[in-house]
């Protein structure tokens, strides 16, 4: 029996700071510890401020999920006021949010995840030359095409929201700019160009063909475009047998519109669909450098332990739903929304291939949603209504960021913020252990990962960690 420890960091091509400690036995990860090593304290900063300032401050938690944070803050304020946004304002906000999520998935696939397949360590694999051509960091043709296409589709956020990231356009009552017919046709054209990019590079076929697949075997047998290249690599490297999840998923439901959420809210427990009850959330602090007791976010506090005492090993709190870990993200959303391929892929729980495939499915579906939403914009309707906030109250804002379920909980007293708690997607996925010693989702997924004798930064660990697309700046905030 051989044993050793590894400290993996700086862990790049994830958003923000991540350090993974690995205990290795007999060539496999026996235990993994995910450390979120950066604490800024946004929840503390918010105290005493005007509630509306949340719209300026919270998007700046994260430069990649900025609109998600903005939408969650706006939803929390709106729920406190008890008023929905203007119908068309909600639609415009969904368009901006959908573009951000689409960009995040593409950035992950092309810039963050697939770059590892171009590594020299994989030389000699039948697909390696093609992976080098397409995915080499900063040089690959897929990487460069993605950067160009992404910059162009973000013109839609420019038109509706002024800039990306950190727009202040999304408000509890709607959005601050009413688009004109001219804006709508520009957005239609931008989306048409983006469809051409997706069909020409990522899918190699009409988007509807990919989104309309019905069995996991159809998707894993997909041979076209970069999606096909990924499926070939995933098959060869056994990515479906790597990074297993618990089979428990959470989604708050994406894109709240008057007719309902475009991707459904729910929980999934190994084949059983359930409703989300946010009252069952607790943030456990036993292994976080945080003082205090496990609490629901409405009663939550953020009090960092400046002495960073053991057994804690991360600034990340450990959220649990009814006492258990859940995984969140695009795969969770597609499973809960009922996409047959996602359900088929995740039948045995999540894995590296299924997580990436979940994003690819969602890219296709989101493009289709965006085209419909832009076509539905009524350029003579109001895009914002008056929303007066009460001097005291509380609100809950639940949205889906690219990486999964994002919640904001606000409490206001005498017109000032008296409590503000945020539970971000990667807070769920990269949480440390809880009081019972149960590892967080990524920690559990890493157990059993193969580690070669000379590996200092094991490739399997990199694939598993990046398959979650962690956003570490959101995680601790």
């Amino acid at each position, binding site marked *: 029996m051989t044993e050793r420890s590894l400290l993996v*960091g700086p862990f790049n091509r994830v958003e923000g*700071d991540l350090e993974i400690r690995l205990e290795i036995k007999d060539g496999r990860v026996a235990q993994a510890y995910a450390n979120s090593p950066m604490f*800024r304290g946004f929840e*503390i900063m918010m105290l005493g401020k005007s509630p509306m300032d949340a719209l300026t401050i919270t998007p700046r938690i994260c430069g990649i999920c900025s609109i998600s944070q903005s939408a969650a803050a706006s939803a929390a304020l709106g729920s406190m006021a008890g008023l929905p946004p203007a119908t068309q304002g909600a639609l415009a906000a969904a368009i901006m949010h959908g573009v951000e999520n689409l960009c995040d998935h593409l950035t992950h696939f092309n810039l963050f995840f697939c770059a590892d397949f171009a590594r020299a360590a994989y030389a000699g694999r039948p697909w390696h030359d093609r992976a080098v051509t397409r995915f080499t960091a900063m040089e690959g043709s897929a990487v460069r095409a993605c950067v160009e296409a992404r910059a162009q589709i973000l013109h839609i956020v420019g038109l509706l929201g002024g800039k990306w990231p950190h727009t202040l356009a999304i408000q509890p009552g709607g959005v601050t700019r009413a688009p004109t017919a001219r804006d709508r046709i520009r957005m239609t054209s931008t989306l048409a160009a983006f469809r051409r990019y997706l069909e020409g590079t990522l899918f190699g076929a009409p988007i509807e063909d990919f989104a309309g697949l019905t069995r996991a075997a159809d998707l894993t047998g997909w041979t076209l475009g970069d999606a096909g290249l990924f499926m070939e690599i995933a098959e060869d490297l056994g990515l479906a047998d790597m990074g297993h999840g618990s089979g428990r998923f959470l989604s708050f439901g994406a894109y709240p519109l008057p007719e309902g959420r475009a991707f459904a809210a729910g929980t999934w427990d190994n084949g059983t669909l359930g409703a989300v009850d946010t009252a069952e959330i607790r943030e456990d602090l036993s292994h976080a450098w945080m003082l205090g007791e496990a609490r629901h976010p409405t009663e939550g506090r953020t009090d960092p332990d400046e002495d960073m005492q053991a057994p804690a090993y991360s600034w990340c709190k450990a959220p649990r739903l009814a006492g258990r870990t859940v995984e969140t993200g695009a795969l969770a959303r597609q499973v809960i929304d009922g996409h047959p391929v996602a359900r088929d892929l995740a039948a045995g729980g999540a894995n590296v291939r299924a997580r990436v495939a979940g994003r690819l499915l969602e890219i296709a579906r989101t493009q289709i949603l965006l085209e419909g939403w832009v076509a539905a914009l009524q350029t003579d309707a109001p895009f914002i209504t008056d929303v007066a906030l009460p001097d005291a109250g509380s609100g809950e804002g639940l949205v889906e960021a690219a990486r999964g379920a994002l919640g904001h909980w606000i409490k206001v007293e005498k017109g000032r913020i008296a409590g503000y708690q945020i539970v971000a997607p990667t807070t769920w996925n990269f949480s440390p252990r809880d009081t019972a010693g149960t590892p967080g989702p990524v920690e559990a997924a890493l157990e059993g990962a193969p580690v070669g004798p000379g590996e200092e930064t094991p490739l399997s660990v990199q694939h598993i960690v990046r398959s979650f697309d962690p956003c570490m700046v959101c995680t601790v905030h």
Partner: protein
Amino acid sequence: MNILWLQSAGCGGCTMSLLCAESPGVLDLLRDAGLSFLWHPALSEQTGAEVRALLAGIEDGSQTLDILCVEGSILTGPKGTGRFQMLSGTGRSMLDWVRSLAPLAEQVVAVGTCATYGGMTSAGGNPAGAVGLQYDGSYPGGALPADFRARSGMPVINVAGCPTHPDWVTETLLLIAGGEMSHDALDALGRPLFYAEHLVHHACPKNEFYEYKASAEKPGQLGCMMEHMGCVGTQAVGDCNIRGWNGGSCCTRAGYACINCTAPEFEEPHHPFTETPKFAGIPVGLPSDMPKAWFMALASLSKAATPKRLAENAVADRIEVPPTLRTGRK
């Protein structure tokens, strides 16, 4: 020239914004100027041990460092240790790394208002002890002392903005690569003048409303946002309305206030961001370089002279009254 890019305590949004550079995109822009990344946390292949080896090489002098870009504030807490941000895998704080690497770089560039002055990370009592690289808010001296100079003899170049416009970053790097970055190219707060010599107010499409003090009263209305909505575009440096963001827009074009995100301490305006503080009903902040008495006189005169078209459009969400057409002379 090579670039080492570190992400300290920020949101990563300046890198995300950088990727929005166009015509050409950021990868071509930098390559064409002979700039390449030694390492970038979001873009490079190397991770873990490979990065530690690279950093060790810079520290022992075997690897030359041309440009150090730092994105994000530097955390000094808790208790001055910097342990609120440890550079993962190294057992050392980012504060320690930055102090070690900055003197080794030919040029040091602070990317974004967190890295320049502390920024949003230092808001609300500054729980993590965030400072900028060479400033703590508007005061010289941050993670690096006020008299810090990079190998070139230059202080930290402060590309402030929350986020930074992609072109502000690429053009700063291109000016460095072209040997055209000097003290004279920076304003008194270390910001490149090519964008800091403009005000956000310049080329704002609400300027005609501003001229007549025809003001928006609620979010979504077209009028000038200075009087009621918290807009400080007349005082904020930046060429946002001249250059345009993400295809040509910007904050004021999208109907919300300029919050002066290129400035030190923008994160604590001492009033709600989207409300204008007033004294006796008059906005407290004046446009840059405008004598108060003249501003008051001109404002009251122009307000009295506001054309009906502007008065009506100012409180509408779309143009209700188009400009009157001149009739022909024949």
